[in-house]
């Protein structure tokens, strides 16, 4: 096997960048996604429709195309010397925000209507109702699917390789270009992804089980 420890170390560095990019996508996507979820349950129809349209557009476009749009689009508006991580990061943030927004909207809506009414009858303002009664319950429901989607984010960072960002998949491609053993190299790459994703998947499943056990 011509795959040396140096190569493995290079691939491992790529894995670290994968984790970093995933974190950026998750944090950015969460902030924007949370705003979207609130917008989707807003009493103002226009706000709801705008958020809904955004989500439909982003969810209906392949992530690869979104990344290309950002990659070429940024150059177009004049930012043509930005590193690939910015385009990749922005694309992933937009992508994640749409899916997280939908997941969290579902969780907000699954808090029983009676909770909203009870809070209203206690003369709490809309903001107080949200923060003190609804959100804590929604967050409990949301933990399992959010962790589940985090796995999706990690896997989708592999597409950042297409715009040249050196994360795990791109590291693999580069190593393969030097030693020409694609099967071995990508098995190693897959193993790294597995090691990152499997604990998250297992955690998400156990969260889901605990939630269902707790339900009456």
């Amino acid at each position, binding site marked *: 096997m011509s795959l040396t420890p140096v190569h493995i170390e290079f691939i491992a560095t790529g894995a670290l960048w994968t984790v970093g990019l995933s974190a950026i996508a998750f944090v950015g996507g969460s902030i924007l996604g949370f705003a979207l979820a609130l917008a989707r349950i807003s009493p103002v129809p226009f706000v709801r429709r705008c958020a809904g349209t955004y989500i*439909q557009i982003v969810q209906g476009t392949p992530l690869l195309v*979104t990344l290309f749009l950002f990659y070429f689009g940024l150059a177009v508006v004049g930012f043509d010397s930005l590193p690939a991580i910015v385009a990749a990061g922005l694309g992933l943030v937009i992508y994640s925000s749409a899916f997280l927004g939908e997941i969290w909207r579902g969780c907000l809506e699954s808090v029983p209507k009676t909770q909203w009414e009870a809070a209203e009858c206690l003369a709490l303002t809309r903001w107080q109702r949200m923060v003190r009664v609804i959100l804590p319950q929604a967050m409990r429901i949301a933990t399992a699917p959010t962790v589940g989607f985090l796995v999706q984010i990690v896997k989708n960072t592999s597409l950042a390789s297409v715009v040249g960002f050196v994360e795990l*998949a791109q590291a693999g491609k580069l190593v393969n270009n030097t030693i020409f053993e694609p*099967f071995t190299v990508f098995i190693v790459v897959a193993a790294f992804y597995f090691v990152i*994703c499997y604990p998250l998947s297992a955690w998400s499943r156990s969260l889901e089980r605990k939630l269902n056990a707790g339900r009456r």
Partner: protein
Amino acid sequence: MTYQFDFSALLPYWPLFLEGVWLTLKLSALATIFGFVVGTLCAVARAEGPRWLKTVVAIYVEMIRNTPLLVQIFLVYFGFASLGLKVTANTAAVAALVVNVGAYTCEIVRAGLESIHKSQLEAAECLGLTRTQTYWHVIVRPAIERVYPALTSQYVLLMLASSITSQISAEELTAVANRIQSDTFRSFETYIVTGVLYIILSFVVRLAFTLFALVIFPRRRKLGTAI
């Protein structure tokens, strides 16, 4: 911003765009059909098979769910080469997509199979049906009807994910877009058009699945309720 949008530069390429749409549909349709068969067989194996088979299927599902499609596509593509088989990029693409969506189909169908109550099995057995007859008529058929919405979502996602096969030079819409943008230097416009085409495709594919359901599930057609 000094950029001038020029969509007219793309006009002469609309036949190519349409061809790309058609190729994506063909690729996705093949992957959907074979993926469904593979996934359903795996689900049945996981529910009813011997212990070793259940473990093998479980490992297969976990490996697919925890690795990116891009890496799976490379492995299948180079895997064929290492076996000495010469396949076209599109064949490798379909194979990789089938392996991928088969795992997700397995989990969806398995949930459906497990949702059928034991009492249904008892009733069928007491009428004298064999295990196989019971399985097909009383478990698999209603299970598929029940999980059909989840399957539809999965196959729409598959159609969108087929864009990744452009990375092994499979012929589909994103590959066409890449070629057009390198021809016209109108990258932004090209990918906007491509994005719009995919969004339209999502609607069309979802509509097709909904209509198909009305054809194969007479109960749904007549009653309009979920099973």
